[in-house]
Structures are given as C-alpha cells and as structure tokens.
C-alpha cells in the first residue's frame, strides 16, 4: 500500500526556469510533509517542510504548496540551478501512539541543464 506517490520518475528543466515536483498521498492522518534532496553516495538532506494546517511554505528559491482536498503537494524551485540536479523525495509524517515515522515516495530525479 503506497501511501505517498511521486508519479514522475524524472524531470528535465533548463537553468533559470521553474522546476515543479509533484507528490500525492492517500492518508488523511499525515500531519507534516517534507521534501528531501539526495545526491549520489550521500544521505537525504532536508530541504523544506509544511504542516498539514498550512497551504504554502517558502524558503528562498524553494516553495512547497499543499492542497489537502486533493491530497497533493508540490515543490517549486525558482530559478532552477545546475546544483539542484538530484533525486527529490517527498515524505509524509505519521504521528501515532506518541511517536512518528516518515513515509517516502519513490523519488523524482531532477536534471537542470544549462
């Protein structure tokens, strides 16, 4: 049962343009959503998060939008830079029994080319 889905395995964007990465989820009990970036041979690096009670969070070039009615979130990167090329994971936090865990999507590989 895949509760978090990233339907696009890859995305190619030109430098300076906007990158939009999408994520869908099925469980209404998720209380936080996070985006992680992963380079080869490194662990995932936290990028940005959003509470389930918000609809937008912005941090520099990165903005995450949450549409609870559609159970959909997206990460916007503006402007995209070659250093943004990495695999991006969407994760949802499930809090139960006093503890929480992260459930990840399969990731989207972003390639930003000059």
């Amino acid at each position, binding site marked *: 049962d895949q509760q978090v889905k990233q339907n696009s395995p890859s995305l190619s964007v030109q430098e300076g343009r906007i990158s939009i990465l999408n994520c869908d989820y099925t469980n209404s009990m998720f209380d936080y959503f*996070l985006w992680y970036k992963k380079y080869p041979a490194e*662990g*995932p690096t*936290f990028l940005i998060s959003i509470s389930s009670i918000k609809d937008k969070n912005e941090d520099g070039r990165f903005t995450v939008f949450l549409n609870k009615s559609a159970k959909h979130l997206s990460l916007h990167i503006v402007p995209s830079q070659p250093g943004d090329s990495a695999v991006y994971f969407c994760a949802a936090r499930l809090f139960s029994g006093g*503890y929480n865990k992260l459930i*990840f999507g*399969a990731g989207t590989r972003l390639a930003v080319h000059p």
Partner: protein
Amino acid sequence: DAGVTQSPTHLIKTRGQQVTLRCSPKSGHDTVSWYQQALGQGPQFIFQYYEEEERQRGNFPDRFSGHQFPNYSSELNVNALLLGDSALYLCASSLRSAGGSTDTQYFGPGTRLTVL
C-alpha cells in the same frame, strides 16, 4: 557540529550471515530511526528507538532488530541475510519534543549492504 554518522560505508556479506550496522546521531538528538532504501525506491521505515527502546516498527520481519545505547547511538542487526536485503541502510536522528512529536529527521550517508 557533527551530523549523523554511520559505519561502515560499504559491506559485503553472503546469504545466511548476520550483519551489524552502526549510527551516531546528530549532537543533541535523542531519537534514532532506521530506513532501508532499495534500488530505485524511496526509504522504507524499519524502526525507531527512543530511550533505548523500540518505539515504532515498520513492516519488517523479526530478523531485523536494533539497539540504542545510553549515548543515543544505535545499531541495526540483520540475521539470516537474504539476497533481497541488499540495499542502502539509512539512519536518521531527531529530537523528541515535550509534546511527543519529533523534530525534523536528519539522515546519515548510509551503509551500502550487498548480500551475495
């Protein structure tokens, strides 16, 4: 400030063997979670340790076990290794708040386990 560290970086084992992976959390963090990332997939939650006890567990068999030490570091043990256990094993640390929820999880670089 040291981040999350894991050892070893790479490991090769044969089927049926046992393996122990190690994790030191980020300074100030008290909660450690372990994840398995198979090729082409996202990390999958194995279990979480807090105050030296397993607090949550994902859908993994009992062959996967762990431990947390008083200094918050942790070990992941896998017994009777199968070919399908080949994966990147990630450790993540966080700080548990008074309300029970934990702060953002920060990941280590992982241990690449290959089972032949």
